[in-house]
């Protein structure tokens, strides 16, 4: 996994206004608890978000993900894009430990 814009030691968490949800068919969503606004997310992003606990570093999470999902360029791009968007749109927050 190549992180383009982020340090590997960064710690992230999901903002309190957002939650993740997986239906019984394995489709996953990122959901704003204030407005009901929702985005469909891929299984890898869902897994990534479910690992965010405000303690693990990005590197630690990516290592866990790597055990289940293949690392490839598409995956790198998608996660990089998601991290960038997440911080911009506010569903991800940086934690300062």
């Amino acid at each position, binding site marked *: 996994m190549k992180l383009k814009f982020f340090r590997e030691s960064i710690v992230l968490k999901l903002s309190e206004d957002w*939650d993740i*949800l997986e*239906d*019984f068919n394995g489709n996953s969503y990122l959901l704003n608890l204030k407005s009901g606004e*929702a985005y469909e997310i891929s299984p890898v992003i869902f897994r990534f978000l479910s690992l965010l606990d405000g303690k693990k570093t990005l590197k630690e999470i990516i290592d866990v993900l790597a055990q289940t999902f293949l690392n490839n360029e598409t995956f790198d791009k998608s996660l990089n894009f998601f991290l960038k968007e997440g911080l911009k749109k506010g569903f991800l927050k940086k934690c300062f430990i």
Partner: protein
Amino acid sequence: MSDVILIHPPTILDPSLFKRKFLSAPLVHYGYGMLYLGSFLVKNGYKVKFINVPELYQWWGYGKEVISRFTFSGSHGRTPILFGIELNWMHQSLGAIELAKRLKEIFPEVFIVFGGVHASLFAKEILSEYSDCVDGVIRGEAELPILDLLKKLESSKSSLEDVSGLVWTKNGKIIENPITKIPENIDEIPPYSTKELGLNKLFVIPAVNIARGPCSMRCIYCIGPLIPRIFGRQKMVCHSVDWIIEQISILIEEGYRRLFFQDYFWSSGKRNLMEIAKGLQKERINEKLDYFNMTSAPGFLDEELLENFSRAGVDNIDWGVESGSQRVLDIVKRDVTISQIKDSIKTSVRKGIIPNTFWMVGLPGETLEDVRKTFYLLKETIELGGVPRWVTPLIVVPKTRLYEEPERYGIRLLFKSFRDYMAFSNTEHNPNAWYPNLITHETKNFGVYDILKIAFMLRMLIKRSSNLILEKAKENSKIYAEYHPHLSLSEVETRVKSSISVIQGSFW
């Protein structure tokens, strides 16, 4: 004779806010109870004027001056003897009270009475909190009580003590008159005519009252079974076929091509239902309509009845599925089985009736496993040709068994009073039907946000299944067209697309 003014209130009186509020748009139509009440008063010689406040806003603009002495006067500018304000739905509570306050300022001498389901349920609370602007609430069927009330108001000396079902105040004390008068022969209540009542057709849903009285089911979240205790009518009675035909003919003559049967008549027994269906067939009602909707609980209409209602013109039916878990259906005492649900959908399709399905979440005792069963039943009904029409969190309706015994059913009520339910009037519209402040309860297993998330999940399943729903409808469209020539492929497609498009915003 004196003038009576019957009013359909807005959800909220402030015209500038009305536009943005929760569910304000669908609530612009008169409830048919008030239309029958108006027809009955006209038959008894009263001059009746109907005012639909949302309609006034639409035509006259959103200005505060709409609620004025000029607008609310009777014929020839006369002061009316009575204002009857409809409070049928909880969404109207705030608007109805604000309207009563405003009218009391302009017409302090005019008696203001509330009627309708929500007003009946909270009659005492309304009088205890708002007796400065509400003079009375009529519980249950209002035709006979309002006639008595008017006679007493006209003679001005009589006491209101024997007006059936009236809740009112005397020397600061709330008096609840017992319900003693209910029309035995409901055919004596005349069918309504929008022309005769001076109504704008756009604000009337062409629905026909078929039956009055309790539903034969026992669902703990519904008012239906409690009608004898709350509204006084002990047994279901139905209008005669001749009366129903007369009502439908009036509507057709007035230009309506759509028709709705939405009361509990489906639980009135096969013989009666068959008589209605055959009567409609005899009159060839089907040839005069483009759309005919009825409602039922699964299992109440067998193959023969569905065949006959389809031949009578019914081209779509609302099936209240509610849950896919038999355990949950049993807890809420909904006497329906999962196999009846599937059979009802399959048979409707076979008999040329588009089966719309309605779903509910946040039911008492519901676990994640039950939600999974509902999720999979929803998928299965889509495969069978079901068209999902509505997904909503359960809203605990006041005075139902669930409301009266929350602990017994393992729920915690978040809404208890008339004021609490006013939140349905002034909550901002949300396109995702995300209304945490309108969830009326929590269950043992699910909190407010869990209930919202489950509803979201079912709505998303429907969204993802859009193509399949459409494909199935197209597959079945030949059968639909055999029974209903107006149900062309494009008409079926349009209807299904329209159903899917409103799902994301469906709530209560």
